[in-house]
């Protein structure tokens, strides 16, 4: 009995919970020390403890106090069974002296080395096991032999999974339209410029919204009849129009056949025409009814309340992002994308303003191995344009260097004034990695984009190196002279650049057109039988007199004799001008081996320049009589 009382007393005395510190799980925990230290850095303070040591296969054991001081865990000691109960928010660890199996929230987990008592009675526990279970990471720096246990304050970073939009309406704040959200339909198309939006439940059930600028001479009534006519092959269910509001004319059609039900609305305002079309499976009444309801809910207004805004316009610009090219550029909000979205490396944007078919932003990305450096490409383009264009109509600045937010460029500007075009262009060239970028901004004169706007566009460009392994070679489709081919007449041949096509060839009469510039060249061949060059000049002069009577014609250079290699030609130069167009014509008559060649070349005014004149001369020089 005495033995019992002694045992009981000792048991009683030992069952005293040692409460730890209050739970501070949200705080950062840091333990740092080298093996052999007896003062450990715990949460910024040096704490002297029983020395930690390494046991077994490299398991670091630390005194229990390190755990309680660092993590603020609660400890309970059960002397009879030599069990340690560690409590921490969400985790309870049960350890037992010399037992290599621990319990975490009741689940047995194997330890690499069990807890043990030192000779002087200190409880040593495995540092890594407990620290990791409490959410810390343990690292060992080989260079300094320092062990660091680190737990950053717990922050639930990251957001949870999201579903489709929750707003009851969807719309565009720039084009000012909104519609009930087509629940049950997925958005399958939303063009960069916001012009085309499409939803679909499946391929038989779709809703499409297309926005286009309204033509100046748009005839509402005619269009209404026209659409009615196209629906001839279906049963018309509804055909209404409302022109009471001149600024918002509406038409509405519903038509069906055995498989399809069409519900079509069109809204015409001064600036834009909105076409809202639904196509549904005729057999699916539920989808069709709901679809028609959604279409009817379309409105030319946009309010921020409970409406998901599809518009990507920010501060007057849309940001265009070519992902595969790691390229971003801001484009003014009234521009649309005129290039195909399928082309990877070339993009063009034009103004929505129907009066303006000149304003243009164009982007091209090419491999430096194909086009040279930015400077070389700038010089090449500069020289090409300078020689191609009529120097009286096109003026060029010099090439200069410029600095923009994210790149340095070589650039030049040019101004064009002619019947078909009045424009001002800034042509910018820069490079990054193995690719060269050519961005040009063209404005319509006399009211061009402000320099600040052009600068804003160019400064908005954000580029990152393109992975050349993934993207490969990008060449520019130049339509440069790709060599020559032989045009065959009955009595002659001529070497012609590949950019010219044969429009017609009767043997004695050939008509060629340059695909790049629409320059026309007509050659007629006649057998001379004794004619002299003097006769040629007489004929040419009489032709000149005839032309002088034409009101639209102005003689630029009177008939005179020129020499092309060994051949002599008469040459007459004149301008033909109408209200909308102006062209330069070169009439030449020459003789070669008793064949008389009548050559007429018509150049459009803008490209009447060095390049084409030289090309014509070379072609004529190459004429060989069979």
């Amino acid at each position, binding site marked *: 009995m005495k033995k*019992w*009382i002694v045992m*009981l*007393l000792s*048991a*009683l005395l030992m069952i005293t919970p040692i409460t730890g510190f209050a739970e501070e799980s949200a705080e950062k925990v840091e333990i740092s020390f080298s093996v052999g230290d007896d003062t450990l850095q715990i949460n910024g303070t040096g704490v002297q403890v029983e020395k930690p040591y390494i046991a077994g296969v490299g398991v670091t054991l630390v005194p229990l106090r390190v755990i309680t001081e660092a993590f603020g865990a609660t400890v309970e000691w059960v002397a*009879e*069974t030599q*069990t340690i109960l560690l409590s*921490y*928010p*969400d*985790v*309870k660890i*049960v350890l037992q002296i010399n037992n290599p*199996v621990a*319990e*975490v*929230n*009741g*689940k*047995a*987990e194997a330890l690499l080395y069990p807890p043990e008592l030192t000779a002087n009675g200190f409880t040593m526990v495995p540092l890594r096991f407990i620290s*990791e*279970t*409490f*959410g810390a990471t343990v690292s060992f720096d080989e260079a300094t032999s320092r062990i660091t246990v680190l737990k950053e304050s*717990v*922050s*639930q*970073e*990251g*957001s*949870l*999974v*999201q*579903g*489709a*939009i929750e707003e009851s309406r*969807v719309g565009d704040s720039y084009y000012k339209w909104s519609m009930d959200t087509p629940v049950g339909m*997925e*958005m*399958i*198309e*939303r063009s960069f410029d916001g012009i085309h939006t499409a939803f679909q439940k499946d391929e038989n059930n779709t809703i499409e919204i297309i926005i286009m600028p309204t033509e100046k001479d748009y005839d509402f009534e005619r269009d209404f009849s026209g659409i009615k006519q196209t629906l001839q092959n279906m049963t018309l269910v509804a055909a209404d129009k409302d022109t009471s509001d001149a600024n918002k004319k509406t038409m509405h059609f519903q038509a069906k056949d055995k498989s399809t039900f069409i519900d079509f609305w069109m809204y015409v305002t001064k600036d834009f025409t909105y076409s809202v079309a639904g196509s549904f499976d005729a057999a699916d009444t539920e989808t069709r009814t709901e679809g028609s309801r959604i279409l009817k809910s379309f409105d030319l207004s946009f309010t921020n309340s409970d409406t*998901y805004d*599809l518009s*990507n316009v920010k501060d007057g610009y849309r940001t265009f992002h070519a*992902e595969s090219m790691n390229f971003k550029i801001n484009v003014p909000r009234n521009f649309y994308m005129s290039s195909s979205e399928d082309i990877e490396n070339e993009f063009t944007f034009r103004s929505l303003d129907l009066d303006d078919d000149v304003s243009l932003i164009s982007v091209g990305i090419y491999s430096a191995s194909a086009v040279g450096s930015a400077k070389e490409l700038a010089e090449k383009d500069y020289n090409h344009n300078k020689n191609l264009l009529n120097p009286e109509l096109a003026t060029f600045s010099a090439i200069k260097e410029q600095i923009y937010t994210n790149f340095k460029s070589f650039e030049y500007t040019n101004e064009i004034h002619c019947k078909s075009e009045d424009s001002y262009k800034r042509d910018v060239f820069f490079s990054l990695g193995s690719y060269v970028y050519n961005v040009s901004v063209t404005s319509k004169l006399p009211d061009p984009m402000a320099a600040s706007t052009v600068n804003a566009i160019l400064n908005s460009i954000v580029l990152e190196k393109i992975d050349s392994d993934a993207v490969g070679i990008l060449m520019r489709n130049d339509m440069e002279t790709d060599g020559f081919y032989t045009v065959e007449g009955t009595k002659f041949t001529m070497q012609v650049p590949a950019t010219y096509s044969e429009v017609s060839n009767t043997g004695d009469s050939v008509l060629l057109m340059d695909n790049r510039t629409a320059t026309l060249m007509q050659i007629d061949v006649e057998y001379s039988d004794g004619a002299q060059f003097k006769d040629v000049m007489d004929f040419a002069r009489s032709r000149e007199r005839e032309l002088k009577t034409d009101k639209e014609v102005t003689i630029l250079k009177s008939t005179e004799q020129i020499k092309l290699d060994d051949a002599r030609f008469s040459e007459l130069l004149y301008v033909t001008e109408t209200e909308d167009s102006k062209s330069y014509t070169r009439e030449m008559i020459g003789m070669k081996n008793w064949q008389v060649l009548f050559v007429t070349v018509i150049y459009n005014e803008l490209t009447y320049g060095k390049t084409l004149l030289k090309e014509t001369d070379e072609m004529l020089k190459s004429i060989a009589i069979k």
Partner: protein
Amino acid sequence: MVNFTKKCLIAALACVLLTGTASAASHVRVYVNGMRVNEDVILQNDRTYVPLRAVSEAMGAQVDWDGNTSSAYITFSEDDAIAQLVENVSPSVVTIVGNYNDGSDSGQFNNPTMHGSGVIYKNNGHIITNAHVVKDIKNLTVVLSSGETYPGRVLFSDEAADLAIVKIEKLGLTPITMADPSTIVSGKTAIAIGTPISLSMRNTVTKGIISGVDVVLPDSHYKILQTDASVNPGNSGGPLLNIRGELVGINTSKFAGVGIEGMCFAIPVDTVTHAISQFEQHGKILRPALPFTLQESWEAKIGLPTLKGLTVKNVSGGELANGDVITALNDIPVHSLADWNEAIKGTYTGNGITVTFTRGGEAYVSHLTN
């Protein structure tokens, strides 16, 4: 003071007398399938007496007590074992959900979601799953069997092995126990837990057998397990377990043949533990960077056993030449690309490889650095 002590003493004595036996039995712990049975256990005459109902029910058995006859009836079947296993293991199986929008305007509007499964392998929130489940995922969310959701982040990912590690900020979770690879043989029961097809089927269970081990498929980097436990998209990343509830593989629906019934695949546990240890030690799975590519024989390509080796091609440096045939890596015979990958998995430590190869009829051994 004296009175207080006396009262305590008396109370304590009463406790001792009531239990009536010779030793404090509370130091004996009983675990059933790794979970502690929290009832008192009695040691008498060197025999351990456990509370009948607690232990039986922990095993999944049914205990009926007839008070009139003082009889206990324990009924137990494999079925019960499996049901209990599922109950025990389910807390270790999670569903991984996220958004896969491509950033385009339609992507942001539709916000499509996709999901897979995962297994908790460390109690502090580390989860293993397939790499293809978490590739390009946004707003990764982990749903525990209890229904609690936590945002998660991808710590590591290896597409060749098709394994990835996801971490959530939650402590005290129930980790899975890894099976001993040598116990994985054809014919043994295999149980898949996961979330196939729809999120309403969270943590549902299918059962089959291990149909084959060391199976090779054209797009499997390592050797894999074949099972007929039904694995569908959504099960990917979830566990394949043996009848003891231990992890034998990670289900991968990626390899499911179109229209092939009853044939599903899992990444075996030894590849999983290799990946985890490589991620922890090096941040990725180490593989040597080789200045050549390897081509296996046509027999190996179609899966016929062969003694032919791997032909060296596209040499861009180093000692080997095009046409050399490698027959062993680090002394392990290799007859297929899967053999090669397995040999690397088993022996590569980052310090080069030793290849045995034949050239012009002669055998050579060479150590390649890297």
